[in-house]
C-alpha cells in the first residue's frame, strides 16, 4: 500500500504513540526525528494546520493527531492484535480515558513542568494526584484484573496514558515527589513497570535522565 513514515520528536509523549502501535502490529516504518525549532518541509507540508508531531505518512498520505493515528493503525492493519476493544461500550470507555489522559492529566503535567515556584506547583500537583487515583480505579474497571487497560495486551488507554510515563518519572525525580506510589496507586506502579518494559515500548520511551536535562533547558527560568 505504500511506504510508512513517522515524523516524531524523541521527548514527545504524543510522538511515541504511533511507534508503540506499529510495533504491536509488527509493522516496519521509517522514523524521522524532527528538530522542532527547525521543522522540516515534510512536516510543514504534511500537517499545515497544526505543524506538530506526530504525523504518520502512509503512501505519502498524512494522518495527524495521535489518537486519530492510533485508530487508523488499528483499522488499517486489522489482522494484527487490536488496539481498541471490539465492544462499542468498551470502546467508548477506552476513548473516555484516553481523552481524560490528554485533557486533564496532560494539562496538569504541563502545569507542573512549567511551575516556577513551589506555590505554583500545588494546584497541578493536586490535579495530577487526583487524576492518578482515577486512573488507578480505571485500571481495575477497564483491565478487569488483567495486566493492562487493554486486558492481557496493551491497548488504546495504555498507549495514550502510558506514553506520559517518561515525563511522570522525570517530574518525580526533579520535584522529589512521588506520583506513583505503592500505598495510593499500587495497581499503577505494577502497570507502569509492565508497560515501560514491554517490547513495543522500551526502545521508544525516552530516558528519564535525558528528559530531565531537556526540561532544564526548555522549562528553565528566563535569564
Amino acid at each position, binding site marked *: 500500500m505504500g511506504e510508512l513514515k513517522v515524523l516524531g520528536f524523541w521527548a514527545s509523549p504524543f510522538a511515541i504513540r504511533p511507534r508503540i502501535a506499529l510495533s504491536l502490529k509488527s509493522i516496519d516504518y521509517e522514523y524521522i526525528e524532527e528538530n522542532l525549532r527547525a521543522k522540516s518541509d515534510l512536516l510543514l507540508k504534511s500537517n499545515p494546520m497544526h505543524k506538530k508531531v506526530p504525523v504518520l505518512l502512509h503512501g505519502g498520505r498524512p494522518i495527524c493527531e495521535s489518537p486519530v493515528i492510533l485508530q487508523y493503525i488499528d483499522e488499517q492493519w486489522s489482522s494484527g492484535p487490536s488496539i481498541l476493544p471490539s465492544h462499542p461500550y468498551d470502546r467508548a470507555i477506552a476513548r473516555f480515558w484516553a481523552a481524560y489522559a490528554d485533557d486533564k492529566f496532560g494539562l496538569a503535567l*504541563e502545569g507542573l513542568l512549567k511551575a516556577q515556584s513551589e506555590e505554583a506547583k500545588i494546584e497541578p500537583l493536586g490535579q495530577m494526584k487526583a487524576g492518578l487515583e482515577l486512573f488507578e480505579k480505571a485500571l481495575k474497571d477497564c483491565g478487569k484484573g488483567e495486566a493492562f487497560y487493554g486486558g492481557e495486551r496493551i491497548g488504546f488507554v495504555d498507549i495514550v496514558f502510558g506514553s506520559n510515563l517518561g515525563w511522570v518519572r522525570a517530574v518525580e525525580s526533579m520535584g522529589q515527589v512521588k506520583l506513583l506510589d505503592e500505598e495510593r496507586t499500587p495497581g499503577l506502579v505494577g502497570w507502569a513497570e509492565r508497560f515501560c518494559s514491554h517490547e513495543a515500548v522500551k526502545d521508544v520511551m525516552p530516558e528519564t535522565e535525558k528528559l530531565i536535562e531537556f526540561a532544564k533547558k526548555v522549562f528553565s527560568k528566563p535569564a
Partner: protein
Amino acid sequence: MADEVTLLDFWASPFGMRVRLALSLKGVNYTYREEDLRNKSPLLLKSNPVHKKIPVLIHNANPISESLIIVQYIEDTWPTPSPLLPTDPYSRAKARFWADFVDKKVYDCGRRIWASKSEGDRDVAKSEFFECFHLLESELGERRFFGGEEMGFVDVVFLPFWTWFRVYEEFGGFRVGVEFPKVMEWVERCLEVEKVREAMVDPEKVYEFVVQMRRKCLADDTLHDVLLTITTEPTRKDIYSF
C-alpha cells in the same frame, strides 16, 4: 428486551445537539431529560462523576460521556441507517481529524467572541474564528456535505454551532452568510432534512438566552460558570509544543 436510551442534556448546548442529531438521523428512540445546570440531577452526577457535564447518553443503564465519544458510540451501536463514518481507514481518519478540529477550535473561538470583556480579545477571537471557517469551507470544497453525498461525522459535529451563529454575529459584528456563503449553503442543505431540523433548536432562542445570561452574569458570578459549562468541554491541547 427493548433498548432503553436516555439523554441527559441542556437544550442550548451544541454538544448535546450533536448527540440529538446522531440519534435522530439513525431513528433511535430515546428519552430526553433536561438538566438544570445550576442544580444537577443525582442521575447526572452518578452517570458522569468525573466531569459532571452534559451530554450523557445512558444506554441500558450504561452511561457514556463526551459528545464526540457518544456520537462514535451511537455509530458503533447503530451503524445503519445513516452511517456517519466511511468504510476506508484513511477517510475515517480524515473525518476524525476534522471533527477534532471543529471540537477544538470552533467552540473556543466562538465563545471568546461573545464572552470576551475586551475589544482586543474579541478581535483576536474573531480573526481565529474566521481562519477556522475558511479552513472548513476549503475542506468542504464542492461536496454537498463533509460526509460526501450524505451527512457524516463532521457534519453532525459542526452543524449544531449554526444555532449559535446569531450569538457570534451579534457580538462579533459580522454575518456568517456574508463572510462564509459556502458554510451557509451547507447549513441550508443540512436543514432540508426533517430529522435534522427536529434535533436543532431555534437560533433566536439561543441568542435571547445568551443575552439574558450575560445581563445576569454582570450581577451574579455563579451564572458565568453555568454559561461556560454549556459551551465548553474539557479542552484538548497539545502540550510540549516546543
